[in-house]
């Protein structure tokens, strides 16, 4: 709701048959994309040989960024600004770390459990704060991250490792077979396995995003975003829908956090709960185009490439690019890359009409 009482613009309701057609089209695209992800490691290896190891890790980071971005966008669709993605990422990472350190748990259990813990935390935070005015929610999520970090730091060192953190066992330990493979192929196999896991999570995130976009939830979310009061008059429960988006989004991020903990080999509070994560999670979809599925995907590929180049020259402060991208996007391209693309194709279409 706008404080200055501007006239809310409500998007036209979807016509169901068109929505169905859109859904099957989106599912086909998702399937094709999943197939591409499946063949990517083999293709990279055939093309680049040993160098494919580092390309694969770049790919993993890009996929991770896309997961963050898609999940953040889910909350944004209900008109809420979540600044707590770092908290859920860290919660997932620490769930698997604490589990493996203190209990004789199977290696893989931390992944689903990380998602569940993050989801439950989101449920608790959201139940209290999502009923409130948007600004309060944003402020509360920002503070929430700091508190979860402080609590994890204050847990007994034997359980959570304090400020020094916890080492986390890797998920994959490919064995080296002398004579049959080269040294670098171990790193390749490890990266390949992680890549498939991350890609699997990304496909889940894409499916969630697409299903929300092509179901009645889209209308509910859009109505809440444009005018919460009108939405509730029309029979949409704002609190429940916002909570749904928030919990799903956070659970996905929790799984991602757990995965990253295994891949990076350790968790520390300053790293797992870094504001950095929240910044990445929100800048990427805004740059790509909010409330879309393709936008965050495009932006994740683009931004992870830029970040990689920049990290080579700047040790600290490379996040400045994300800040600049955020400000520029808000001021000049509020609909992101997708909006730019639309504008270009529309112009072409118009020109086409003029010249029969």
């Amino acid at each position: 709701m706008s404080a200055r009482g501007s006239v809310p613009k409500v998007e036209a309701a979807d016509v169901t048959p068109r929505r169905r057609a859109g859904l099957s089209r989106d599912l086909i695209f998702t399937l094709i994309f999943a197939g591409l992800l499946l063949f990517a490691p083999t293709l990279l290896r055939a093309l680049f040989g040993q160098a494919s190891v580092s390309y694969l890790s770049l790919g993993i980071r890009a996929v991770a960024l896309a997961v963050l971005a898609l999940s953040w966008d889910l909350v944004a669709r209900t008109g809420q600004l979540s600044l707590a993605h770092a908290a859920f990422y860290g919660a997932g990472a620490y769930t698997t770390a604490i589990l493996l350190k203190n209990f004789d748990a199977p290696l893989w259990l931390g992944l689903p459990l990380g998602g569940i813990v993050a989801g439950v935390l989101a449920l608790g935070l959201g139940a209290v704060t999502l009923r409130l005015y948007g600004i309060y929610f944003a402020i509360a999520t920002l503070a929430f991250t700091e508190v979860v970090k402080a609590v994890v730091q204050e847990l007994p060192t034997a359980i959570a490792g304090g400020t020094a953190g916890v080492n986390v066992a890797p998920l994959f330990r490919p064995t080296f077979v002398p004579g049959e493979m080269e040294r670098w192929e171990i790193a390749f196999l490890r990266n390949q396995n992680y890549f498939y896991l991350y890609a699997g999570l990304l496909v889940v995130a894409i499916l969630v995003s697409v299903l929300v976009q092509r179901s009645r939830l889209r209308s509910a979310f859009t109505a809440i975003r444009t005018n919460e009061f009108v939405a509730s008059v029309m029979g949409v429960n704002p609190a429940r829908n916002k909570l749904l988006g928030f919990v799903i989004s956070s659970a996905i991020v929790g799984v991602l956090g757990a995965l990253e903990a295994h891949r990076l080999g350790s968790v520390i509070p300053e790293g797992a709960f870094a504001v950095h994560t929240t910044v990445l999670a929100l800048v990427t979809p805004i740059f790509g185009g909010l409330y879309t599925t393709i936008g965050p995907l495009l932006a994740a590929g683009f931004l992870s490439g830029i970040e990689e180049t920049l990290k080579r020259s700047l040790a600290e402060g490379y996040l400045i690019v994300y800040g600049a991208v955020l400000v520029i996007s808000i001021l000049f391209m509020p609909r992101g890359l997708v909006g730019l693309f639309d504008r270009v194709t529309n112009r072409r279409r118009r020109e086409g009409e003029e010249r029969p």
Partner: protein
Amino acid sequence: MELSLIPQALVSGVLAAGLYALVAVGLALAIGVIGIVNFAHGEFFMVGAFLAYQLFVSFGFDPLLSILIVAPALFVIGALIYQSSIRFVLKAPELNQMLLTFGIGIILQNLALVIWGGDPRTISNVPYRSIGYELMGINIGVVPLGSFVISVLLVGGLYWMLARTRVGRAMRAVAQNRTGAGLVGLEVDRVYLVAFALSALLAGIGGVMIAVIQSPTPTVGFAFTLKAFAIVVLAGLGNIRGIVGAALVVAIAESLVATLVPDGDALRNAVFFAIIFIALVYRSRRTA
């Protein structure tokens, strides 16, 4: 639990409350007058701190003296940021406004990281840094006392300005009713510009003081954004008058937790969250 430490904690809390009020009142001004929830507010504070540090290192400026340079500098920076970005999102959805200020905050913080690095910076060799008085077993440092006095003067000055001067009355008028204020001939955009620049100036002066009190890193701004939000939420968004009381509550609570809870230093931030949270729940009860 050491009960004899309570008076000391209370005094430290009250002294800290001055600085907190100074920072929070600027944030409340931006929210109350312009309606912009400024997530970059703490970064103005940080910029003030590092400008003071740089003036000290490069030219040997005493921090007290550097206020005279930092304050106008921050006023200009605030005005520039308003003119180049904030003014374009005044009618945009709230989400966009918050994201814009968040982005400005990221830029400022990382710019400072690029320039000064992530290590804490200390203004050493200031003669009054280590002076302190003892009064009935309570230690009072000259620096916290001085920052308290300066803050009280500035916050008092702001209240006086809002109540008595033309600019202040214009700000209150715009805050109450933007359209109405425009109709009676106020240049609303100018008032916004001055309010935003003033809010940056107040934060910047606060930053100069933290540069002497602590050894800040570029992330100090983020911590103070949270503190300022806790105070502003407690006072009620946009309520400028309630800031002083809220700052006292927050600062004293923080000081008590840090003193009385073993290893309470890391839990300091939890205090702010608890306050924000309690204030939120209280407000939701009242409005529901």
